């Protein structure tokens, strides 16, 4: 099923929780709503589920306007961060509760519950109550409850946030696999950019109730349209350096005291003559090399596979991912080479990218 949001707005008094959002989700697509807490992503999800009613704008499932349709008639399955299992029912009763309300026959109910329980590896827990399960098991049951009703649309509200790191990794893969296998359109709310990047076909980045970008994970990573997205997506986060782009001898240079970096002509041209702009570069796109921009090691953070090195250049700092075998120590002089193809440039006023619109 396709989902389309048209000028969707939700206002509480004078506060806009969701502000004029337009986006379309294709049939079978996995879309992540990504943003910091309070950005309106969960509100948007609850609008789609029908728990909240839009102030203005429209929600369409396929071609049908859903604004006035109560949640129970929308045939969506939802998984909550808090699991939201019914504590007074057994796992089996939890799984079949939505089907009971839909008056599915008992035999089919049993069959579907069994199938989903097998699929999720919770078949041995059917007689237990949610209070007797671990967090991971509870989340599986919650997922199962959303699946047994055979929804047209799956909604996830930060479903993995309460799980420990290991479990999160395995559940992430499992949710992704189930969604592809069953081909159900899914919308997944998260504040974790890694989750969004790894699971989603497309990511909708939200901030302050507004849609900042809606594109594929690769595009979001390689061509961030705003400063916010550039800083939010990617770990460790992108470096930002305030520079001025000038043309010298036919070559564009990004300059600041103690820092001079030649730019690719097509990138430099976008930023030249604008006064101060913000240059962005990811830590993995800066290398410690024999020649380049000179700096001094300020902090070394071992991350295991890499060391994250904080290099001081004049009065600014750049984070660099470096090979741990280099054995860098505080105060060591280093020279850095910036990958010119990965350099981002942003307007400091509008915070929009100068390279991608």
């Amino acid at each position, binding site marked *: 099923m396709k989902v389309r949001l048209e000028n969707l707005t939700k206002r509480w008094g004078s506060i806009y929780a969701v502000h004029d959002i337009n986006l379309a989700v294709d049939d079978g697509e996995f879309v992540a709503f990504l943003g910091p807490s309070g950005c309106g992503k969960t509100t948007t999800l609850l609008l789609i589920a029908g728990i909240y009613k839009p102030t203005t704008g429209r929600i369409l499932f396929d071609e049908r306007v859903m604004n006035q349709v109560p*949640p129970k008639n*929308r045939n969506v399955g939802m998984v909550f961060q808090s699991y939201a299992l*019914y504590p007074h029912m057994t796992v089996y009763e939890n799984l079949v509760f939505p089907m009971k309300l839909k008056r599915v026959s008992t035999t089919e109910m049993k069959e579907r519950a069994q199938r989903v329980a097998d699929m999720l590896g919770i078949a041995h827990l059917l007689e237990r109550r949610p209070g007797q399960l671990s967090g991971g098991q509870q989340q599986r049951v919650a997922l199962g409850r959303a699946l047994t009703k055979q929804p047209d649309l799956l909604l996830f509200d930060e479903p993995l946030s309460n799980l420990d790191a290991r479990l999160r990794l395995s559940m992430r893969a499992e949710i992704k696999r189930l969604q592809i296998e069953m081909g159900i359109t899914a919308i997944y709310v998260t504040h974790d950019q890694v989750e969004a990047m790894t699971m989603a076909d497309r990511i909708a980045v939200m901030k302050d109730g507004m849609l900042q970008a809606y594109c594929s994970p690769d595009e979001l990573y390689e061509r961030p349209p705003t400063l916010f997205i550039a800083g939010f997506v990617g770990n460790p986060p992108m470096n930002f350096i305030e520079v001025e782009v000038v043309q010298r001898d036919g070559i564009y240079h990004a300059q600041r005291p103690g820092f001079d970096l030649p730019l690719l002509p097509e990138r430099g041209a976008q930023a030249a003559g604008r006064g101060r702009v913000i240059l962005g570069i990811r830590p993995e796109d800066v290398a410690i090399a024999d020649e380049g921009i000179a700096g001094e090691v300020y902090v070394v953070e071992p991350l295991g596979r890499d060391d994250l090195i904080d290099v001081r250049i004049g009065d600014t700092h750049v984070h660099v991912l470096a090979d741990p075998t280099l054995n860098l120590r505080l105060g060591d002089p280093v020279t850095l080479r910036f990958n010119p193809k990965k350099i981002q440039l942003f307007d400091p006023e509008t915070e929009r990218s100068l390279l991608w619109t």
Partner: protein
Amino acid sequence: MDDRLGIGSRWQALILLVALGVLTIPIVIGYLWIVISTFSQRTYGLVPVDASGQPGGLTLRNWSFLWTDPNIWRVSLNSLILALGLTVGVVLVSSLAGYALSRISFPGRRIFLGTTLVLHAFPSITLLIAIFFVLRWISGIPVLGRGIPLIGGFGYNTLGGVILVMVALQLPLGIWLMKGFFDQISWDIERAALIDGCSRLRTWWQIILPQIRPGIAALSIFSFISGWNEFLIPYTYITDSQNSTIAAYLNSLLGDTAPVNYSQVAAVGLFQLIPVILFFIFTQEYLLSIFAGGTKGGT
């Protein structure tokens, strides 16, 4: 056991128990005296004595009201009706109103909550005269006033009228208690139920209510016991002994003119206490579960 109490050693626990035991002695002696005196002609301290002051004098005479005064069964039944009626009324209205106040945003919600609290703080005795006029006015309404079997009606000098007044006086406490229990239930569970296909009323009935069973049990117990024991309201608004309740009956034994037989008063008091004690034995599990943290972790 020591570990569960969070106390270091067995000895410390023992000292604590002894200290608590000593402090409890006066009230235990009080109850002991009541029990002993109901079977005695007189008592000297806790020792039953006969008319001449010698130990002995055990008798069942004080309990004779059970077979000589048919009115005792009548007033007991009335008390039971009052207690049950009060419980049903309070639980029904409180659980609906508490849900609405906890979950639904409607104009006047805050003011309503505030005034409810003020009403609870209002001593009911100051309302007696005003309520009298209300009940008398209700008496004038056909059928509703005094034409209903079992409870008589909702007017003056009927059990129903007393139930009505007592429900009203108990509601502030009940509503706040219920609201507190509803507040503890996560919104997500309710949202899940709505998405799974429930209507709002069904969510309340099938998903939310089962989770606050301990709260409902507590409110029921409190309501039942206060209905069973209530004296002031039935004493004020029921004039005829046929409709009277057990607490008012007890009061009638304490006449101003005749000498009071305290042993008989104690017997009636004990008789009144029996259902309460039975009730407690069967419901204390629920009461304990409230103090042990309510609904956490399922049932």
